[in-house]
């Protein structure tokens, strides 16, 4: 009963937030899948914030607080939401950028389904085989912080002591707090909770990628994109490892997808203003998940601000307004609970590193190496496969790429540049740090890369053709 309530209230919170920001009733299956995928991630995010605040203000009866929040969301949904006035927008947007003969469409459909089943099979078996997650970070960082939140009572901050080495007390608390929230509703700790949350984020990311591509580029592109992500072994492994990189990749993708959807609507002279607010919220959850979220947010805001139109100014203002509460939460957490990140601890030592050219060369080599072997693909690396695919199917004489796509590519580029800079100044041994983290940083951006890749493939004849679905 408690488990059912926990799952229902989490998903319902997410659904109401998505529906509130997106007033139009979903008509197409792809639109429903998109909303469902967003609901899962945003619901877990909301759950996390609720529990953190309950813990911080020492409120009892988490169940009652959840009910109050749900009632408030329902009330807001029915009273403040504007009725959907847009015409059949997704019928306008849905089209095929890659037209395929029927037999190949069937082969692709079967292959995507196979890859999805394999990913599910692998992720579930790995979760069963490793109930405490794979690797140390699960029980040394994320679930450890969850335990302190759950067991610590008013002394939960003890868990963020600098006496516990390598536990990263400055890491934000989306995952630990969500896990602890479910534990508190169940009344006990169970390894199933972090495992299921990991699986939820993994397959929501695939769902989000598929549905957004289906809406913006047609089912064929969606299946190709979904196939690429579901066939990435490292993505599936990390999804079940109980680390925070796949959840972060979900929120990064959500931000990019929502901004593109918003601009696709605007291109058809339709306004759905809540989408940018939702993107801001997703960015807020990203910064509440891992420190890299802050870097991504800065990159996103910078690239959005480079547009000089009134629309861009309004978009940035809406984005920042939606992110503001999360920024406040994270800044407050880092100021009052967390200790400074080890990387920035020894500032005088940074300058010699910045001026050392050999460090840059080492990092460039590792970036190149990991670009080629990222994802643990076999036999052809996924990154190389995308390049080959693009060279085969895209004709030279094509329309220009849109400003939104350029801005998103710049966002990822700036984020990567930020990762590069962190390696330059890191206090850890450089080789050690690159070896044990670079592939996970790439993983955070991988779903976005696949999304933008298929978005960059222009419509074959420059015109939209009807969706085969």
């Amino acid at each position: 009963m408690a488990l059912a309530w926990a799952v229902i209230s989490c998903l319902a919170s997410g659904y109401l937030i998505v529906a509130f920001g997106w007033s139009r009733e979903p008509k197409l299956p792809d639109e429903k899948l998109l909303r469902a995928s967003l609901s899962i991630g945003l619901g877990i995010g909301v759950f996390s914030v609720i529990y953190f605040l309950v813990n911080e203000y020492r409120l009892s009866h988490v169940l009652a607080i959840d009910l109050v929040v749900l009632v408030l969301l329902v009330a807001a949904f029915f009273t403040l939401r504007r009725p959907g006035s847009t015409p059949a927008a997704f019928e306008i947007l849905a089209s095929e950028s890659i037209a395929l003969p029927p037999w190949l469409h069937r082969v692709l459909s079967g292959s995507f389904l196979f890859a999805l089943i394999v990913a599910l099979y692998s992720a579930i078996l790995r979760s069963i085989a490793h109930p405490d997650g794979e690797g140390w970070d699960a029980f040394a960082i994320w679930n450890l912080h969850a335990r302190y939140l759950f067991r610590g009572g008013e002394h939960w901050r003890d868990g963020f002591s600098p006496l516990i080495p390598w536990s990263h007390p400055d890491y934000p608390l989306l995952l630990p707090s969500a896990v602890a929230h479910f534990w508190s509703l169940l009344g006990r700790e169970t390894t199933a909770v972090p495992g299921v949350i990991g699986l939820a984020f993994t397959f929501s990311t695939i769902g989000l990628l598929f549905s957004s591509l289906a809406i913006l580029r047609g089912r064929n592109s969606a299946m190709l994109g979904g196939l690429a992500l579901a066939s990435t072994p490292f993505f599936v492994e990390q999804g079940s490892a109980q680390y925070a990189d796949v959840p972060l990749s979900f929120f990064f993708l959500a931000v990019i997808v929502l901004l593109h959807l918003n601009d696709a609507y605007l291109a058809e002279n339709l306004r759905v203003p809540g989408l940018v607010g939702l993107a801001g919220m997703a960015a807020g959850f990203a910064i509440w998940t891992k420190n890299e979220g802050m870097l991504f947010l800065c990159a996103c805001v910078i690239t959005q601000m480079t547009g000089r139109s009134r629309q861009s100014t309004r978009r940035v203002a809406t984005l920042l307004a939606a992110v503001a509460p999360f920024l406040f939460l994270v800044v407050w957490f880092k100021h009052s609970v967390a200790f400074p990140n080890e990387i920035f601890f020894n500032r005088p030592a940074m300058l010699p590193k910045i001026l050392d050219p050999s460090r840059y060369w080492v990092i460039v080599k590792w970036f190149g190496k990991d670009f080629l072997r990222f994802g643990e693909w076999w036999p052809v690396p996924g990154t190389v496969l995308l390049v080959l695919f693009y060279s085969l199917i895209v004709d030279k004489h094509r329309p220009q790429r849109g400003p939104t796509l350029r801005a998103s590519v710049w966002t990822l580029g700036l984020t990567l540049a930020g990762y590069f800079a962190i390696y330059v100044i890191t206090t850890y041994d450089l080789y050690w740090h690159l070896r044990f983290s670079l592939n996970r940083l790439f993983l955070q951006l991988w779903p976005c890369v696949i999304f933008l890749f298929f978005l960059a493939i222009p419509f074959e004849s420059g015109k939209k053709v009807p969706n085969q679905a």
Partner: protein
Amino acid sequence: MSEPHSNRQRARTTTGVLLFTVCCLLSSLRMVYKTGNPLHIQVDDAGELSEKRFAGLRTELPNRGVVGYVGESGNAGTEDYYRAQYALAPLVVDRSKDHPLVVVSVSTLPPKPDTTGLEPVKNFGNGVLLFSNKGAK
């Protein structure tokens, strides 16, 4: 667009999609192979064993505060420390002898942890011992 060009482009698209699909499927098949036989899953029970190992000790320690920890060195010792920290939360386990109570974790392999200056309090079995450090600040 001229017809021969359209045909060439369609052939390239078909080839590209087929190649992409086959490569993705090969990667998926490798994932199946690496995941192994579901009837013979080997569950990593290190976490559960660690919880049981430290269960008795937890009942003897205060609910909160800091305890010291001494264990073996190296990677195995580091994992053991984090497992102990996870099992004993919400206590903070400091990898130091400089606390009134010190948890000592002993494995079967040499060398034994350094317990110089510590006095034994209780042996919980399974290589888990509690020591006291009367000289701790």
